[in-house]
């Protein structure tokens, strides 16, 4: 079936809701100056101690457009929901239809008014003193993942797998001048074919759990010898990375082999039926850390592999997940920009099957992992640490824990401890950022 002939999602304005400084109305004022009528609303409400802003989200299926009686509102191909002031008769139907605070009925002029993103250069963003408003180039996302998916559809991964999504996106961004490396684990279903049928037209190598970085070493050295800059990219799991294959990984990192190593971390041996690995979170139930009267899930905290990799002094290390696609793409690009050193990406990849969550929950879990500080998004670019998605006000840990059956047995105290550990992890990275912001 064909995909919907839709306007492509393009750039958009992002607002960190409720993160404005008190008394600041810079966005609304700048908008009013630029556009005669303010389209962004500063929600500066000292009476309820709230300071934020709202504006149109440029809906994909705008209710305002559907309600407009004169065709004055159009969803343009470029994504902007544009209001034609010369067609607007001021009936107000759009303002009734929109529940998002995205369209304003301007009393004085008897016309509706709404954000048109200043055609991609929003005055409000320029005026925002804190970065609460930002211009997110979603169109660049489409440009970044611009290559066709090189893998066949219908591979044998579970429906709803976050790793598969990340895998496909990774190679849509990288393109075709690449050798793909895998190891026994879930994602190997994508890397390698079964019998004589391959899953991809990319050259691919499935190694052992113990030797992927070493195989890559040999391949990349040989390719460079032939004068080729073909990328060598591994996409392997946390068992391979953090446990049985850690030695080879550490060796290749220390030698600074020019490869990109991506670990999709589903926190356990999922392919063998959900056993704990060293990255399994504390308290999580797995088949080897079951819950009974004398045991309550994994006793130890997760091994922080990305941090270990950062301290190998390699060119680039980052954590990422597909719930933060912009961040993910940027990090892939930065990792690829490293041509002569080792780059490591640690991808948080919720496994709804092994984590005891519904099939459609992987992205939400990934999102909340970040928002609760369980999984901070950061990078260490040539030793400079940076949190790429700051979480100033973390959501309560329960928002994360409640999504997964693997934590269901945890009592309030154990949950709180998880929350504290997440906080500590976040603050450790913060401290590193402060210490190694400029090296």
């Amino acid at each position, binding site marked *: 079936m064909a995909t919907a002939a839709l306007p492509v999602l393009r750039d958009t304005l992002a607002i960190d809701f409720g993160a404005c400084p008190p008394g600041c109305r810079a966005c609304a004022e700048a908008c009013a100056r630029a556009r005669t009528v303010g389209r962004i609303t500063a929600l500066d*409400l000292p009476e309820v101690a709230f300071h934020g802003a709202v504006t149109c989200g440029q809906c994909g*299926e705008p209710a305002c457009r*559907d309600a407009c009686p*004169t065709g004055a509102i159009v969803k343009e191909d470029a994504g902007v929901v544009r209001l034609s002031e010369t067609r607007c008769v*001021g009936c107000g139907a759009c*303002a*009734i239809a929109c529940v998002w605070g995205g369209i304003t009925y301007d009393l004085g002029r008897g016309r509706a008014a709404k954000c048109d993103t200043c055609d991609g250069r929003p005055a409000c963003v320029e005026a925002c003193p804190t970065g609460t408003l930002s211009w997110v180039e979603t169109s660049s996302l489409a440009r970044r993942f611009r290559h066709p998916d090189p893998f066949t559809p219908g591979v044998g991964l579970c429906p709803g797998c976050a790793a598969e999504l990340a895998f496909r996106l990774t190679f849509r961004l990288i393109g075709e001048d690449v050798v793909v490396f895998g190891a026994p684990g879930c994602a190997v279903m994508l890397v390698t074919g079964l019998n004589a049928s391959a899953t991809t037209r990319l050259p691919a190598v499935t190694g052992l759990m113990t030797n992927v970085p070493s195989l890559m070493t040999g391949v990349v050295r040989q390719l460079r010898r032939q004068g080729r800059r073909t990328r060598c990219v591994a996409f392997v799991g946390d068992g391979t990375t953090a446990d049985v294959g850690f030695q080879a990984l550490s060796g290749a990192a220390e030698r600074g082999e020019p490869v990109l190593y991506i670990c999709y971390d589903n926190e356990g041996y999922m392919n063998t039926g959900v056993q704990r690995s060293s990255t399994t979170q504390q308290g999580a139930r797995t088949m080897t850390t079951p819950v009974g009267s004398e045991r309550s899930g994994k006793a130890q905290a997760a091994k922080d592999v990305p941090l270990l990799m950062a301290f190998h002094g390699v060119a680039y290390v980052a954590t990422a997940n597909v719930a933060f696609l912009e961040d993910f793409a940027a990090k892939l690009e930065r990792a690829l920009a490293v041509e002569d050193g080792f780059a490591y990406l640690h991808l948080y990849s919720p496994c709804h099957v092994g984590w005891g969550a519904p099939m459609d929950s992987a992205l939400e879990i990934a999102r909340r992992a970040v928002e609760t500080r369980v999984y901070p998004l950061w990078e260490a670019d040539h030793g400079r640490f940076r949190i790429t998605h700051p979480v100033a006000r973390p959501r309560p840990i329960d928002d994360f824990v409640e999504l997964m059956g693997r934590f269901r047995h945890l009592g309030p105290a154990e949950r709180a401890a998880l929350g504290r550990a997440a906080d500590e992890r976040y603050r450790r990275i913060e401290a590193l950022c402060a210490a190694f912001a400029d090296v």
Partner: protein
Amino acid sequence: MSAVARARHHVIVGAGTAGLSAVEAIRRACPDDAVTLLSAEPDPPYSPTVLPHLLAGRIDETRIALRPEAFFARGRCRLRLGAAVTALDAERRQVRLGDGAALGYDTLLLASGSESLRPALENPDGVELLAFTRLGDLRALRARLHDGARVAVLGAGLIGMELAEALVHRGRGIHVAVIEQERQVLPRSFDAELAGEIAALFESRGVALRLGRRATALERAGRGVALTLSDGRREPADVVVACVGVGPRAGFLAGSGLAVGRGVLVDRRMVTNLPDVYAAGDVAEGPSADGTPGVHPVLPTAAGQGRVAGLNMAGRPVEHEGWLPANAFNFFGRVAVTVGATEIRPEWASLARTRGRARGRLLFAGARLVGASFVEVPVDPGALGWLIRQGVPAREHAELLLARPVEGARWLAALSQREVA
């Protein structure tokens, strides 16, 4: 190939707001499906909402098409103008067109809108009684409007008042009289106090209001006509326009087996009693936000119902949230907005605030907001509607909502949307 994957043919009767919203939804959900959009009228799709604005000269006919022509070329939507449906044969999955041809469908949407109700009055001379719901009505009216003409508008509802305002706006010495049986204008939209203010505004612009009186008879009088009112007075006029209400345009469906009450009866998925037949917009009688069924002939409801119908026709089971009364009025630059309930009930609390001409009133059932009306105050009716639908406990923030309605409502709505999301 599975049955679901087969490209299907959706027929939509009516190229208004509801019909087009359905097209957008189908196109998005099932881009390979074929859609035929039928309109009884020869004009490119438009909304009757524009009639007063056209009459007042605020906009001209070149700027009212609901979609550019290219919209229909793009995607598989065939628009057929001047193609009135005359009958429905649900058993054979066909509609019959004015020219006698039959058109088969896989799913059918009835979005034929509403038509003007005829007032019950004696008209022995067969005097022409105009309506004001279609472009054709407007053209007829325009043709009869000479400078200084006297226009009698029957009914002070939304359409009648908009017509009156447009006529005043148009100028050229036109005299307007509005005859209304209730003791106030806009009886279903405002309480007596606000209605009184609006009436005064109209009178100050020279509109004669005959409230508390019905027109009982119409006859020729010299070169013009004359109405007889229920208090015995006569109202001379050159043109008489009936704006006594609208009802579903469902006459052509008679005999089809379709269940029709005050409108074509539909559930939350806009499904009628006939298989694969849907209805949306002014023609439909569907559930309101609190579940009671009714016809709610306004744009946002037509748009929402049309979208839900389209998605269901495309095989995506989606339910309509139910319509919520909401209206925005702009008379002579004075704006009034109502959302939710307008009439207070004994068990509810009313909180109000007045600052000069600006005033607002909120109705609360316990902590929940159930109704809001504002005059001459910038508000966000969509955000208020969200608070009412979701039953957001807003009472503790009543002060904020009255003092700064836009910010207050948007803030509360955004917080609750974050929770819902």
